[in-house]
């Protein structure tokens, strides 16, 4: 059997589209940087699997969310129960005793608050569905935020392709400002630097310095260094 991309004898438009799509994605390239980065993270991480004793905390949090009691004890659960559970996951575990103690304390606090909430609110308790919808409202999720950010970058790409590098820079700057945690921050900065250098704009050197300070081992380090070198001449 030959790989799809080697089937050159067909004129089927779907097969051609499939081949075009596959042609844009190559095999994973070996990367010493990636290997080093993962190694560093492995060495610095002492995260352990969830010890069995932590499971009651997880179950309690999920149950509270489902019954709606979680919504009534906003002081304990920050935004959603899963967030609290995720926090448990994300904290580096130095020793087993500490997280177990934390989890026990957290479980006890949750239970105590739940009992308190039920006792206080019992006469005028809202139906669970209302509580659940309240919990949903409290979630920080911003639907469509990522597609909005992608749109900005795609628009910038279109502007760049049509030769309007000023508009591309403006859109990328907007992306950087609106989505400081966006997945394409590095690319946006590199593209702005590239566009400024293409226009002969003096800000290119500033952007290159900014890039190198933010991403000293970034993928566009060479380009940034070249921009800096040409700015000096």
């Amino acid at each position, binding site marked *: *059997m030959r790989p799809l991309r080697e089937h050159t004898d067909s004129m089927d438009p779907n097969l051609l589209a499939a081949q075009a799509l596959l042609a844009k994605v190559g095999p994973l390239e070996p990367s010493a940087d990636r290997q080093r980065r993962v190694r560093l993270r492995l060495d610095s991480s002492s995260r352990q699997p969830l010890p069995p004793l932590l499971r009651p905390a997880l179950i309690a949090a*999920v149950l509270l969310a489902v019954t709606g009691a979680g919504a009534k004890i906003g002081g304990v659960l920050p935004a959603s129960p899963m967030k609290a559970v995720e926090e448990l996951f994300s904290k580096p575990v130095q020793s087993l005793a500490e997280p177990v103690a934390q989890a026990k304390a957290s479980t006890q606090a949750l239970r105590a608050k739940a009992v308190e909430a039920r006792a206080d609110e019992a006469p005028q308790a809202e139906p669970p569905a209302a509580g659940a919808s309240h919990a949903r409202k409290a*979630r920080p999720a911003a639907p469509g935020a990522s597609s909005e950010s992608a749109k900005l970058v795609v628009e910038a790409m279109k502007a760049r392709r049509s030769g309007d590098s000023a508009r591309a820079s403006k859109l990328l700057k907007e992306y950087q400002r609106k989505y400081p945690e966006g997945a394409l921050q590095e690319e946006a900065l590199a593209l702005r630097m590239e566009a400024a250098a293409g226009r002969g704009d003096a800000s290119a050197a500033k952007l290159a310095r900014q890039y190198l300070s933010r991403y000293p081992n970034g993928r566009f380090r060479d380009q940034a260094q070249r921009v800096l070198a040409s700015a000096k001449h």
Partner: protein
Amino acid sequence: MNVLVQRLVSTPVVLSERDAKVPTFEQIYAAWFHEVARWVRAFGGLEADVEDLTQEVFMVVRRKLDTFDGRNLPGWLYRVAQRTVRDYRRRAWFRRIFAGKPAEAEAESPSGWMRAADPGEILEQREAEKTLGQILSQMSAVRRTAFILFEVEGYSGEEIAELEGIPLNTVWTRLHHARKDFIQLVQKARAEGRIS
């Protein structure tokens, strides 16, 4: 001196047959990192964060190395990677359902497996990967893995059979069906205007 420490100090170190066969974690990491990253990409369906997942796999490898019998290291690593990615995908699903995290946000996370090149090209490539990832995510895990290993990563059918521990004919059958599914999904994406 503590009795336990005394016993440990006085016990002669004899390497068992297993210890002699099992490489150290350092050796495994150095020799297999890239292969594991490729498998992870195939299991994760292109959209997953290869670095995060590869890190998780090696955390499991480090933890479970003591239980490895020393036979068929690639097969063992492959299965560890498979399970780790499967669990990761389940957790991601759970997070999406219960924490309201949009699926797209995960798809957008940087995979960090592209070559340094023109940033514009990289963005275009990311768009293509995203579309391809969305199409592949609609395929069954078994077919998707075989498809990515063969069509994207360039593994031969024989290599896939060895890694999966299945007969070669089964690999060809999976690939045949995967290809059929893929072309149908591409047709659908074209009809919806998602790709040209």
